[in-house]
């Protein structure tokens, strides 16, 4: 309990750096992946292979005017991007990216990350409601309907892992996979988990709350400049957290031969993020009721059966 | 020759006189405004579909022709129906309740030629602005 404020400030700075850098890299990576899947190059002009394009875009966004619509609910409208972004800084605290690379070893780290992941939806709802725009409102209400469908299978996945590792601590869970990654024991669970994090991070084929072809831009339709980029930052940071969690829960975290721990961590993490991008640029979007069907009638029973079977095997 | 066209026309007592389809028309009729609804009903019953409703303005003769094109999904049975109305107060009965697709064509014809379609379920302008009252496809229209 006795961490000095200086350390906290250092950690916050470090986490901010990770959040910012991650967003820059992911935006670039997303554009490149999308481009090459489309027989295009993606950004090529700013920097080698367009590496600095995101930075240029960020500077451009900084210079733009942040518009608040007259009809918007001003306090809610301003609060929404902040509500989306702030939990990330806390959720990154217990993530171990290496043997020693962890801001704070917390014995309930996993629960903290999962709990804070929920606040993203509140941010989206806030934005949807505060914008006073019908498309945004539809986007916000879709996000709320979505959370009910995926959260329970997600928690079941996590419960199964907790049961296997016997700890809530992310570090302990990773260490418990010293001899064999959980993905080898639980391939089905891994698939369910990947689907639920696709839902959690609002990415295609589940990007209902921003559904471009239906709701134009959904919940962030009225946001410009920094408001928009904060949402962007939040989206990519949630991806980072979800993928980090996946690599820790199923792929043994930082553990791997030859390479140092953080490198393994980032490799696994970005591998999973690439998988999410691959989904996005391949699949059409589901309909909202089909997503509910998927969540309640496919993911939930599978996760539950998997949970019970695992419990049975562990009890024997 | 027992084509749907002959059957449909026979039912309302119109002689079927096929034309050489060199001009893309199997048959061309000139009927009275009162007949159009019963003709449309008879054609709908035989499975004809509506191709278009339009008009032709002939200011020299001070008349205006409503033009209906019907066709059948079995193919090559295009029927042209002309209905002459007065140019000063053009009125035609609407077939929008028989062929729902005709409503848009009638709305377009109404705004372009100033023909009133009696009983059309929707009489707003279709392509022109809501408040437009001019009729651009009339021959004497030269611009707003």
């Amino acid at each position, binding site marked *: 309990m006795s961490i000095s404020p200086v350390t906290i400030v250092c950690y916050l700075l470090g986490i901010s750096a990770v959040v910012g850098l991650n967003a820059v890299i992911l935006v670039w990576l997303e554009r490149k*992946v999308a*481009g*090459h*899947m*489309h*027989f*295009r*190059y993606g950004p*090529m002009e700013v920097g080698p292979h367009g590496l600095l394009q995101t930075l240029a875009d960020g500077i451009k966004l900084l210079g733009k005017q942040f518009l608040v619509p007259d009809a918007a609910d001003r306090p809610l409208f301003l609060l929404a991007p902040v509500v989306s972004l702030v939990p990330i800084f806390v959720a990154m605290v217990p993530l171990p990216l290496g043997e020693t690379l962890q801001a704070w070893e917390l014995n309930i780290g996993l629960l903290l990350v999962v709990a804070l992941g929920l606040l993203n939806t509140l941010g989206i709802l806030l934005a949807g409601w505060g914008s006073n725009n019908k498309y945004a409102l539809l986007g916000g209400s879709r996000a709320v309907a979505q959370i009910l469908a995926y959260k329970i299978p997600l928690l079941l996945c996590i419960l199964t892992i907790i049961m296997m590792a016997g700890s809530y601590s992310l570090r302990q869970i990773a260490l418990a996979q010293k001899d064999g990654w959980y993905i080898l024991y639980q391939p089905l669970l891994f698939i369910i988990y990947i689907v639920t994090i696709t839902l959690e991070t609002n990415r295609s084929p589940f990007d209902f709350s921003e559904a471009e072809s239906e709701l134009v831009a959904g919940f962030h339709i009225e946001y410009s400049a920094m408001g928009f980029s904060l949402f962007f930052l939040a989206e990519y940071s949630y991806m980072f957290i979800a993928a980090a969690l996946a690599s820790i829960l199923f792929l043994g975290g930082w553990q791997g031969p030859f390479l140092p721990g953080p490198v393994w961590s980032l490799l696994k993490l970005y591998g999973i993020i690439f998988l999410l991008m*691959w*989904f996005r*640029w*391949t*699949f059409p979007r589901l309909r909202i009721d089909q997503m509910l069907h998927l969540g309640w009638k*496919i993911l939930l029973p599978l996760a539950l059966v998997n949970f019970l079977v695992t419990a049975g095997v562990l009890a024997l | 020759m027992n084509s749907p066209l002959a059957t449909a026309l026979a039912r309302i007592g119109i002689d079927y006189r096929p034309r050489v389809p060199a001009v893309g028309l199997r048959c061309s009729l000139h009927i009275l405004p009162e007949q159009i609804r019963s003709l449309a009903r008879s054609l709908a019953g035989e499975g004809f579909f509506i191709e278009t409703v339009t008009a032709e303005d002939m200011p020299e003769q001070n008349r205006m022709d409503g033009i209906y094109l019907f066709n059948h999904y079995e193919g090559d049975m295009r029927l042209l129906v002309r209905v002459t109305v007065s140019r000063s107060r053009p009125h035609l009965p609407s077939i929008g309740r028989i062929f729902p697709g005709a409503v848009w064509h009638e709305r377009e014809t109404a705004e372009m030629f100033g023909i009133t379609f009696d009983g059309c379920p929707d009489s707003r302008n279709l392509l022109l602005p809501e408040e437009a009252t001019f009729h651009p496809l009339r021959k004497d229209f030269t611009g707003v």
Partner: protein
Amino acid sequence: MNGYRYLAGIVTGSVSLLKGMRVTFANMVSRPHTVQWPRQTAPLPARFRGHIRMLADEETGFPRCFACGSCARICPSACITVQGRKPGDRKKKVAVRFLLDFTKCSLCGLCVESCPARALAFSRDYALAGYRDTEFRTMDLLEGLASPFQF
């Protein structure tokens, strides 16, 4: 039976998704189709229709146009203005003014086809840019050509 169909549906569905992912992955590792303009340019076909330009007579270097006006008459969007004058020593007129309103031109090419003197051709300019619309509203096609009336 229902349970079987439920599971079979999940399996075949997943397989179909994997198939799609295989296609996109194959796309990703294949060569991009885009041409990185302006560093690279795509080849222009021989029949490329740019804005029209005036051809010069090989002997005199004067414009081939003798201002018959058939291009201006046939142009659907009325974007050609042409005037000619008869030099003292020749039988035919020579164009002294040939203006193209490129903002209205629809590049249909009817003028080129209709020209009895074969004086018009398509240019190969495609990346036109300017600071004012007047640059394209009155494009002078006689620019750079010799004229019998210049002293």
